[in-house]
């Protein structure tokens, strides 16, 4: 099963205290500097929508956002362009991109350190119902590959996985590590 359009979201700590307005000029600066690998194009502001996409940095190959879907605010990477390689490569690519965005946001002086990964919670989903219909069979086939990926990410630390079983939703899993990790550690775990 070849998966594409991997989405990864790293949930932020203390989401109630996060104000998304200061994020907008930050994303504009990212476009000015084209700081990501992807071609960055525009910003979509959905702060007015409850449990919505938040503020989205639209790119050609991928979007970045501070996404509040399901009332789970996090730094989300939405891969739109296809990628070569294995599923694991694609999980790693999406997770690394999201983590690098987290790292930039954590370092942004304008945000005052308010947007920080909570250290434990990650959502991963496949934004393509044809390639990955959300059914038991797909989940069973995907599960081993995901475990290999998260074993690598957490370097043996225990974690729990909870699948979203609503067949109308995207195939997705919420993962919670048993101990907190810093963004830099997770990047390190993925690239070495």
């Amino acid at each position, binding site marked *: 099963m*070849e998966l*594409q*359009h991997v989405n990864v979201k790293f949930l932020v700590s203390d989401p109630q205290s996060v104000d998304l307005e200061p994020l*907008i*000029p930050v994303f*504009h600066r990212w*476009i*000015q500097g*084209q700081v990501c690998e992807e*071609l960055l*194009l*525009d*910003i*979509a*502001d*959905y*702060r*007015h*929508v*409850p*449990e*919505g*996409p938040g503020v*989205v940095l*639209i790119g*050609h190959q991928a*979007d970045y956002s501070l*996404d509040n*879907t*399901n009332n789970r605010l996090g730094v989300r990477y939405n891969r*739109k*362009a*296809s990628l070569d390689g294995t599923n694991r490569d694609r999980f790693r690519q999406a997770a690394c991109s999201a983590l690098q965005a987290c790292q930039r946001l954590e370092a942004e002086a304008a945000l005052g350190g308010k947007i920080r990964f909570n250290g434990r919670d990650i959502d991963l989903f496949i*934004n*393509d*119902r*044809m*390639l990955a219909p959300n059914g038991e069979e797909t989940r069973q086939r995907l599960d081993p590959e995901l475990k290999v990926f998260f074993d690598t990410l957490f370097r043996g630390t225990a974690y729990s996985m909870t699948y979203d079983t609503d067949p*109308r*939703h*995207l195939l997705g899993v919420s993962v919670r590590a048993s101990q907190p990790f810093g963004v830099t550690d997770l990047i390190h775990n993925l690239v070495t």
Partner: protein
Amino acid sequence: MKASNALWKEHLAGKTPEDLAREVDIFDAEVALRKQGKLDERLFAETRLRRGVYGQRYDNGQRHDGAKVQEMNYPSGTLTKGPSTMWDAPGMQRIKIPAGGLDAGQLETLAELAEEYSDGIAHVTTRQDFQLHYVHIEDTPTIMRRLAAAKITTREACGNSVRNVTACPYAGTCRDEVFDVTPYAKALSKFLMGHPDCQNFGRKFKPAFSGCAQHACGLTSLHDIGFLAVTRQENGVEKRGFQVYVGGGLGAVPYMAKLFDSFVPVEEILPLTQAVARVFARLGEKRNRSRARIKFLVQDLGIEKFKEVVREERQTLPADPRWTSFLKDAEEFAEVPLRPGDETSSSGGERFKRWLETNTRPQKQPGYVVVTVALPLGDITANQLRSLADIVRKFTMETVRTTVEQNFVIRWVSRRDLPEIYEALDAVGLADPGAGTIVDVVTCPGTDTCKLGISSSRGLAAELRKRLAERNFQSDEAVENLHIKISGCFNSCGQHHIADLGFYGVSRKVGGYAVPHFQVVLGGEWEHNAGSYGLPVAAIPSKNVPKVVTRLTGRYVEGRNPGESFKDFIKRIGKAELKSLLEDLARPPAGDRSYFSDWGDPREYSLEDMGTGECAGEIVSSVEFDLGAAEREVFEAQLAFENGQIEQAGKTAYRAMLHGAKALVKIVNPAISDDADQIVIQFRKDYFDTQKFWDPFAGGKFAHYLFDAHQKAGTPHTSDSSRYLIDEAQLFIDAAHSCYNKLGSSVAV
């Protein structure tokens, strides 16, 4: 872009209606041909537009990032999907929803598409359509296939075609309607879709249906063709028919539709519309897009001549069984409830009570209500769409519709289910009270995504919504029920002309800096199917618009007579007082740089026009003075019009245009005389022929306003012609400001 596009094609083969599938296959082939360079870009542009595939802002491959213009280096390089429209640039997909009617499965399909191909949001438009933004052209055939499988089409959602047929969303439930217009609207939509007589228009053609004259819901007065339900007795039997209106339209200069016939029997509405379409295709303007809507044809011919030509055309039509084949089903058409009706009143907390007041409306059928789901700026998430699908399945026979106020209505809700449906909606953020009130601001996409946007209508709408919700007007019904509508430019997609408080985006130069502004348009009427259009009062910097709303509503509260509507109040106090009331807000405070960016967009507005250094003072050029004087003349024309001095109003509006033109001509020829012919000749030479005065999208439209007015300078004015000329003069001067901004500060100061 999506890896699964080919798989969807295979998966849905044989599962979609044959005609829709064939349509999509053709478009898919055209996408492939264009990608290979085997289809001309102009031809491809028109073909995609007719499938609802629009361009979006920055799709020319350039974007001002706040510091400089960036070239977008897309992977497909210079490949285009239309003139100056890059292949890879994100675009918009418009989806037609005839009469706004949907079922739960269709809501779920829209949710999937918003999630997989867009940015997770589906947007409801002011014509009951949906729009998905940031869509890649190569995904559009798959989107269309998946929609077709849900029996939805995007065909003729854009382009020079018959657009979505809209209808009152309360049709069939409204206590004041004459009869349910739904089946007639759907029959007309089906009949006209792809009809050979509708393929050769110079511009778009928008039909609308309403069940009554007094409410706003159908907005028939502002449509190319509008149908208003009426009945009459024939041999003791009640006969259904429609009052038919033609030639309405908003756009830059709004036209009120003219009565074509006070009673067209139902069996005649399809052939009559076909005859109108044929006349429009044959006699309508084709080359000059700015005069190609049917409203200009009706105006040029006069309504009586137009009627005569259409009636002659009607006689030539070969009979078509479709004209009447829908009638039996139409007369029997009736939605049914899922649950028994109940008149028991509900109790609950304050918020629930508030929601009951503003978001529910009793149906004519006892025990049932229509529930409005108010969407902020018309936006809804994929998860909310799925939840809405669940709710309409649980409480109704999936009777849900979109509205022209960018909301949903759920029909046939049993009154006793109200607490439960409120809870269900509230759990997913869809139970905001205030539907149809001052907080329920309507807006077009504006500079967020629209290529034509001048100011950030959505940014302003979000800000106003937030502030007005905080102010809480519940105690004052007259203020609470005002309507605010915002367009990002003069094109009126936000329907600003028919709002109590309307705004449309313009730009102005202040001390050498471009500043986003909105024209304040007052005196429009939403009720009575858009009963009257407002007139511009003043251009205000974007950041001052919330103050304008506060000041105008405050002045209304203080100064109104008992029972006086806002529209009547505005008319009574007059333009002069209004202008004076807003005068101090018309210029940004010196040194406040926040005015140089727009709501929700921190980039400095049009930085190309800015010099280095801070905006320390007000440096006003002679051009700005002259344009300001021209603007004052438009205002004087408005005052004259308001006082019934029709001839003087028309002449003053024309003079304002001449002065606006002269202001620009003086840059090239400071010695230009006051002779009108000389001004127009030199303006044509220096600004029209050189295309310096051209709008990037409207082309030479605004210059033609001057040329036409100059040509007709000696002709006496009617009320209509004077009114149109005032609007045209305002737009001409807005365009003169834009032109001056584009020329750059070096010539300006």
